[in-house]
């Protein structure tokens, strides 16, 4: 129980630190971690553009963020839903944990990965 709280505190700390980092530094101009997969293959991965999108979002430039990586707008709320899943109503849990729904999420990620490289 206590280690669970410690873990939560650590995650919260990293999240706040990351948000502060991306608020002050524009990953498009400042040195920022680059995608390894993209460096090797030359293709964009489903996550490419997330850092720039985050920076734009933190400065309330929603349209710009969408242009960098629209997946952020779906992935973050969805991940939040899964984090809180135990406290959500039964009916929502049943959708979230339906194998077909999760496979659809995987298919969407794959489609976005292929689609953005065409």
């Amino acid at each position, binding site marked *: 129980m206590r280690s669970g709280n410690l873990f939560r505190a650590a995650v919260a700390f990293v999240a706040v630190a990351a948000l502060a980092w991306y608020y002050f530094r524009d990953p498009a101009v400042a040195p920022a*971690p*680059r*995608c390894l997969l993209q460096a090797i293959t030359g293709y964009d991965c*489903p996550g490419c553009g997330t850092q720039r999108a985050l920076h734009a979002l933190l400065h309330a430039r929603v349209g710009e963020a969408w242009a960098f990586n629209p*997946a952020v707008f779906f992935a973050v709320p969805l*991940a939040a839903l899964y984090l809180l899943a135990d406290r959500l109503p039964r009916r929502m849990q049943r959708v979230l944990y339906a194998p077909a729904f*999760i496979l659809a999420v995987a298919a969407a990620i*794959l489609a976005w990965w292929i689609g953005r490289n065409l």
Partner: protein
Amino acid sequence: MKIWIHTGGVQNGPYSKEQIAAMHLPPATPVWYEGLPQWIPACQAPELADIFGAAEPGENPGETTTVRASEPAAAAVCGVETAEALPPRPSTFLAWSIILTLCCCTPFSLAAVVTGALTTQRYNRGDYEGAQRMSGITEWLVIISITLGIVGLPVSMIAMM
């Protein structure tokens, strides 16, 4: 005899009675064969009584419970053995794997989403051991994904210079 079954949210079949016996299905698996008015739990199907053992022929023949596919609660209809509290669903790590597809950009996190789906699929089917195994695989995929992300960070920074 041709028997259809509902597993993992999809209809499968037709199978012969011998095949059904070899599958070792959970007793609450929805089944249908010609002559049944609707899908019923395997343990209540008269023709499968010798496989699943639970059904008593002659006792309330018309009164079977309708089961809807992919309804885990249906497990409660098949006597004490399955009516006991279901084991909790093993973690799917979906919050992790979805966020990781955004930031560690490795195919491993996508694979973790798929194994997460397989975890719930096994679990809904009543295959708790399989679900546990899939959950373990998912956990490793998440760990590999995070590790590659952390290792890749300095490597990619150097590559940029």
